[in-house]
């Protein structure tokens, strides 16, 4: 902390008074922070880390915040539209200000700075004396000076308040336009589309995201963005916003003479540093804006610092990204605390998911260095574009990845190093000769920066052995999250691969134990193979369902009951399996009858409609080509299923870790392109594998030709018809970590196809971990796809006969769980809400109307809704 150089002779009377007041209250120096955005908050945290807080008795800290709420995650602003509340986006722990004694003034911006008197005046009239002033005022969205820009229906996209206003106005609008096709513009366009507006993007440059991606990347991006239903206009400028008699937007006139009829316009044409306060008090600002600072983030007045987007850094750049701002916050705090630090510049690498499309650029993405060579792979049809910029000496200078940015995490830290393999091998897609080579993080040097948000190197990460520890000690992974995958790969596998606190064995080891020793009881397994301290106990919520599933998978083979709710098995099942239905947030259940291949007769459709009507259930077509009936009470489940079973329906196992659906396209029977009967095959497969218990849910699909309308490559096992037969793909996944399935074998006959799937599934069930989808399993096991192919196609382990027999046992032993339940009074007994009042309906399950159906009465479920503990804990 520099000695306060306080000179009363140079101040005005009022300020002198205020200053004296302030100093009278505390003998410690006062730090005033203007702006409580992302960087302002990070600066406060950096002060706290260095003990420079009122609570530590070292300083008075005053924060002036213009917005009505404390700092929030502007980077994730758009997730507000995905259901995140403003509170979810907050960056400030509830008691942060109190704990550190920091004075935060919400909704009270600074209006003037008196540098001579060292005071800041706020809009409320309050005056604050400072010894050190930190400006963290961020940017404002630039709105081009076109006529009509201020009309009702024109917005910018920067704050939560902006989003609230857009959301409100969009209710009365049908069409929207975003001016600007950069990173933020596309994000805003995605948001408008999500609000149900037909959406245009108008970009002055000849391509989208001109700053981040090059021409080829722009083309791939354009294609994908158009496929999402946005209308893109590049190479044209907005000349005027046309306004109707009521003062509201009616359209836009473009520079190519065309016009667009739109109800709502969002300007996203770049940002400008908010340097007005600095200008007015005579601090040096750059020609094109930005408060001039040196490497210590000090402005032309040594008592004033500027950090974040409002600063013009020592390298002559204004950074519009959060990571460099965080670096500045850290540097400034260090300097103010009396240490030494410098911000000399940062790299502009970014990885984002825009409208669901991965886009990443890093290093010298435009290949501007002399003699640089581009290695490019481009597949406009698939919307994939990858470019690596290689220097003359073979070093990686930078790159652009569009559509598939999985390699970003490993490539970015290699910038500046010579690649260990030929660059082409890194950009070619899977399945093409020679590529791709997966470059593991083990190839990275220790100095490689893995987390660019927090500037954490591989070396620093590898000092820790578990992710939570890494996050806590280095902050790596707590920003944009794009580095998490690589961090995970750097962590050593846990010393004890045991399933949980009760068993020292993995799921696949338990499978082998159950299979070879023919164990049929959980208690027996726990007492013979559990950890010493867990024997005789009750197990836990992890091992009980896992062992339950293993015993169920092997039931016909080891001689256990095939019915998952018999005897001790009942106590092992998650609540969904226990009631053969899916628990919903208000304690009611959903009912999903199986509709194999998505094919259903009008009669059966009518039965579903009648059942839903008679029981007042909410009805929705699922993403799996079938129908979900929501809102049933426990005691209604048997009555509902009696009607469904009578009409020929079976359980759809939506609740189990088991086969879900085999989706199908309509195929050759109707479709002019179809080459095989995909519906027949899908129904056959769904009936064959229904009820099969597995480590995680299993999904499948069959497409009638290469157009792939059934999305088979997004499934655990997907089948695509060829003129000669069927191609089998395995290891696909939608969900949180999508993966395209890999080709296992081609041009198979019906019988060959079924045999291969039998073996594949049984090999997976035998060797996968708990809650490991086939995609993750395939990536994890030694040898990957090649190994699986050796085992199930070439029978390299001599297992195939047994795998086929296990599946034959399953197929022969299958019985519909619901039919078995409703025909057995003993099994029906569990379906009551209250053990002491079997006839009383659950008073806590109540509904309110919405869009002519019901929805849970959430008022009734008062109490905070907390975040999901783990994704893997969910029921399906």
């Amino acid at each position, binding site marked *: 902390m520099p000695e306060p150089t306080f000179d009363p002779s140079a101040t005005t009377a009022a300020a002198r008074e205020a200053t004296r007041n302030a100093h009278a209250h505390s003998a410690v120096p006062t730090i005033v922070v203007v702006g409580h955005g992302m960087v302002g908050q990070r600066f406060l945290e950096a002060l706290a880390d260095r003990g420079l807080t009122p609570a530590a008795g070292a300083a008075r800290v005053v924060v002036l915040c213009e917005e009505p709420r404390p700092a929030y995650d502007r980077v994730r602003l758009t997730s507000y539209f995905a259901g995140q509340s403003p509170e979810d986006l907050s960056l400030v722990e509830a008691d942060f200000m109190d704990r550190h004694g920091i004075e935060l003034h919400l909704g009270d911006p600074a209006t003037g700075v008196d540098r001579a008197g060292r005071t800041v005046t706020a809009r409320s009239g309050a005056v604050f004396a400072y010894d050190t002033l930190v400006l963290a005022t961020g940017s404002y969205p630039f709105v081009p000076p076109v006529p009509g820009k201020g009309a009702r229906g024109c917005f910018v996209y920067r704050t939560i308040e902006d989003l609230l206003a857009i959301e409100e106005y969009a209710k009365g609008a049908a069409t929207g336009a975003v001016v600007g096709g950069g990173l933020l513009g596309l994000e805003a366009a995605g948001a408008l589309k999500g609000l149900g507006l037909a959406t245009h993007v108008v970009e002055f440059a000849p391509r989208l995201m001109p700053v981040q991606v090059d021409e080829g990347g722009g083309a791939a991006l354009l294609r994908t963005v158009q496929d999402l239903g946005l209308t893109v206009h590049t190479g044209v400028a907005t000349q005027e916003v046309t306004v109707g008699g009521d003062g509201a937007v009616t359209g836009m006139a473009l520079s190519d003479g065309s016009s667009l009829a739109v109800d709502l316009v969002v300007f996203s044409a770049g940002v400008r540093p908010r340097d007005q306060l600095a200008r007015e008090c005579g601090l040096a600002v750059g020609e094109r804006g930005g408060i001039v600072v040196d490497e210590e983030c000090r402005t032309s007045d040594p008592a004033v610092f500027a950090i974040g987007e409002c600063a013009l850094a020592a390298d002559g750049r204004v950074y519009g990204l959060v990571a460099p701002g965080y670096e500045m916050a850290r540097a400034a705090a260090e300097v103010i605390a009396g240490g030494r630090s410098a911000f000399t510049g940062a790299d502009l690498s970014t990885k984002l998911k825009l409208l669901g499309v991965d886009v990443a650029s890093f290093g010298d993405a435009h290949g501007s260095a002399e003699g640089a060579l581009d290695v490019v792979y481009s597949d406009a049809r698939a919307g994939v574009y990858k470019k690596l910029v290689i220097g003359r000496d073979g070093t990686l200078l930078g790159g652009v990845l569009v559509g598939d940015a999985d390699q970003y995490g490993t490539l970015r830290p290699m910038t500046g190093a010579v690649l260990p393999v030929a660059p082409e091998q890194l950009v070619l897609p899977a399945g093409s000769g020679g590529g791709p080579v997966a470059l593991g993080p083990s190839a990275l040097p220790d100095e490689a920066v893995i987390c660019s948000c927090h500037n954490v190197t591989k070396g620093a990460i590898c000092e820790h052995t578990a992710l939570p520890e890494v996050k806590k000690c280095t902050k790596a992974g707590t920003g944009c999250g794009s580095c998490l995958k690589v961090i995970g790969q750097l962590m050593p596998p846990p010393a004890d691969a045991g399933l949980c*606190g009760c068993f020292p064995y993995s799921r696949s080891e338990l499978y082998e134990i159950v299979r070879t020793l023919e164990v049929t009881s959980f208690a027996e397994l726990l007492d013979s193979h559990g950890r010493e301290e867990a024997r005789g106990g009750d197990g*836990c919520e992890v091992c009980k369902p896992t062992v339950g599933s293993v015993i169920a998978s092997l039931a016909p083979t080891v001689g256990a009951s095939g019915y998952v709710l018999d005897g001790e098995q009942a*106590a092992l099942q998650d609540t969904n399996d226990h009631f053969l239905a899916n*628990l919903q*947030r208000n304690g009611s259940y959903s009912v999903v009858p199986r509709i194999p291949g998505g094919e259903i007769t009008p009669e059966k459709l009518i039965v579903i409609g009648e059942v839903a009507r008679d029981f007042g259930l909410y009805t929705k077509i699922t993403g799996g080509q079938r129908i979900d009936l929501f809102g049933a009470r426990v005691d209604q489940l048997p009555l509902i299923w009696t009607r469904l079973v009578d009409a020929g329906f079976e359980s759809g196992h939506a609740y189990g870790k088991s086969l879900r659906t085999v989706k199908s396209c309509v195929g050759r029977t109707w479709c002019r392109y179809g080459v095989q009967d995909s519906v027949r095959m899908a129904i056959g497969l769904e009936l064959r594998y229904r009820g099969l218990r597995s480590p995680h849910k299993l999904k499948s699909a069959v497409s009638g030709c290469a157009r792939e309308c059934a999305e088979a490559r997004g499934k655990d096992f997907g089948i695509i018809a060829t003129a000669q037969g069927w191609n089998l793909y395995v290891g696909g996944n939608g969900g949180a970590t999508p993966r395209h399935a890999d080709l296992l074998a081609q041009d198979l006959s019906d019988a060959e196809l079924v045999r291969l799937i039998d073996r594949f599934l049984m090999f997976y069930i035998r060797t996968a971990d708990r809650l490991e989808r086939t995609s993750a399993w395939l990536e994890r096991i030694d040898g990957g796809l090649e190994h699986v192919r050796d085992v199930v196609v070439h029978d390299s382990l001599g297992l195939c006969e047994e795998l086929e027999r296990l599946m034959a046992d399953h197929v022969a032993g299958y019985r519909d769980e619901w039919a078995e339940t409703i025909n057995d009074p003993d099994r029906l007994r569990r379906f009551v809400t209250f053990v*002491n009042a079997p006839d009383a309906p659950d008073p*806590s399950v109540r509904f309110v109307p919405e869009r002519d159906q019901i929805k849970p009465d959430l008022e009734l479920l008062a*109490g905070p809704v907390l975040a999901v503990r783990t994704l893997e804990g969910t029921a399906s």
Partner: protein
Amino acid sequence: MTTATFTTGRGTGTGRVRLAHGEDWLSVCDRALLTPGRGVAVLLPDGDQAAVFTDRAGRVYAIGNRDPFTGAYVLSRGLLGSAGGRPFVASPLLKQRFDLATGVCLDDEGAAVPVFAVRAD
């Protein structure tokens, strides 16, 4: 509602399960209706709900049925387990675990559910 649980006996499956409610012992159900490792819900005279469990050793426990994290009355449908010899139930919704003897949430010290005294003859 009391804040301590006391359990008796490791009965063989006959007899009644009773729950302390105000001054009275509310008769809940036959012991035989309880499946070790699972729970049942009980409607209390005041409209509130309790969740009653029995573990592998035959001990009986009762806590409030309302999951404080979601507001739903579902704890009776969770899986019972034991950690360090202490029994818990994992909520079937978001999987937070509650100690059956104290009602305290093992995953979030700030949360707890009420505990009822139970008796199993």
